[in-house]
């Protein structure tokens, strides 16, 4: 009689531990949201989804004026997306609904490979399965264009990234990265995008951590710049050697950062002003 009870207790304890582990990421998100709302009263997470444009009327007007800037990128992305492989399939055939309404679930944890899979990795996995040449993760003309197109198929859909129990270590690495001071200038991502959100650095408004994952890629100088591309630019400004695009470090950071935006609508391909010369 005692043994079955013990077993049942152990099972309950196990499930509670799993729930507690899964609850931790949402506690992280709540903490960041509370901090941002205290710093930026009167703004909602939906406002945060505009990124730096939420604090800059001039930028919002420029975004409207440049509404068509993404068109050539999207056309090229659609061409790559629909191109027939040698076996007659295409990238579109690898994803549910031909890729529509799926981007909000990425990055996602791959339980068998035990790693975070980004949208770019899923695209290359498809190419690999069909024995096609892989795309260079950091190439804006190919991978940038096709992810711009693929994410545009999810415009308006809410981000819904899941962190299952097995993904805790990856999520935690991403979280630590976001809050760790790095490089010669000793900034953390959070220094600017949590602590300094809404303020201006080098005359540009700093986007809040929540919402940053909604509008990538951004279109700058006619090119798609991925979230990891933007992070790499930040790392350079911090005086840190940037991790390569597609590295485990940046994939986990993207995982954490995207989870922070859960519940917000995707609005891919936001126009941004060209970078000023240093």
């Amino acid at each position, binding site marked *: 009689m005692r043994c079955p009870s013990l077993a049942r207790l152990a099972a309950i304890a196990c499930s509670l531990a799993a729930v507690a582990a899964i609850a931790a990421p949402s506690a992280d998100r709540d903490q960041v949201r509370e901090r941002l709302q205290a710093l930026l009263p009167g703004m909602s997470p939906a406002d945060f989804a505009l990124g730096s444009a939420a604090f800059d009327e001039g930028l919002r007007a420029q975004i409207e004026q440049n509404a068509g800037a993404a068109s050539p990128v999207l056309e090229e992305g659609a061409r790559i997306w629909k191109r027939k492989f040698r076996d007659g399939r295409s990238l579109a055939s690898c994803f549910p609904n031909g890729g529509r309404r799926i981007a909000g679930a990425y990055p996602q944890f791959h339980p068998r490979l035990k790693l975070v899979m980004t949208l770019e990795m899923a695209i290359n996995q498809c190419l690999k399965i069909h024995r096609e040449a892989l795309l260079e993760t950091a190439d804006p003309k190919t991978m940038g264009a096709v992810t711009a197109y693929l994410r545009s198929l999810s415009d308006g859909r809410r981000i819904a990234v899941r962190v299952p129990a097995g993904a805790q270590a990856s999520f935690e690495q991403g979280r630590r990265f976001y809050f760790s001071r790095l490089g*010669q*200038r*000793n*900034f953390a991502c959070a*220094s*600017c995008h949590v*602590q*300094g959100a809404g*303020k*201006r*650095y*080098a*005359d540009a408004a*700093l986007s809040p951590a929540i919402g940053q994952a909604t509008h990538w890629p951004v279109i700058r100088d006619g090119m798609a710049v991925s979230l990891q591309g933007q992070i790499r630019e930040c790392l350079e400004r911090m*005086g840190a050697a940037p991790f390569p695009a597609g590295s485990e470090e940046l994939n986990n950071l993207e995982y954490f950062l995207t989870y922070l935006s859960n519940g917000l609508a995707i609005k891919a391909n936001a126009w941004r002003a060209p970078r000023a010369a*240093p």
Partner: protein
Amino acid sequence: MRNLAALVLAAAAAALPAAAAPAPTGAELFARSDKGFCIACHQVPKGAGPATRSDLGPALEGRRMRELGRAALRAIVVDPMRANPGTVMPPYGRHRILDDAEIDRVVDYLDALP
């Protein structure tokens, strides 16, 4: 031997422009993105430097700088985290972003702000 002399002369001539280049002023160190780039976070009074809307750090004005005094100002530029562990200001001395002489010139500039 003649070739060696020519080589030495050429090397000396090549070294001359670098040696003759004037050291950046405190104001330049304050504004240059490859140096202090303090202007990225701080505004300064009109006429004392480029006008910006940057406000990640507090606006700087001469009266406050002189209240702090040169020693405290220098200590902040060298390592602001000693006085304020939560600050986002870079540790210009501790992380060797600026050398001692450059920090002195930045402090001169701050101390002389209107």
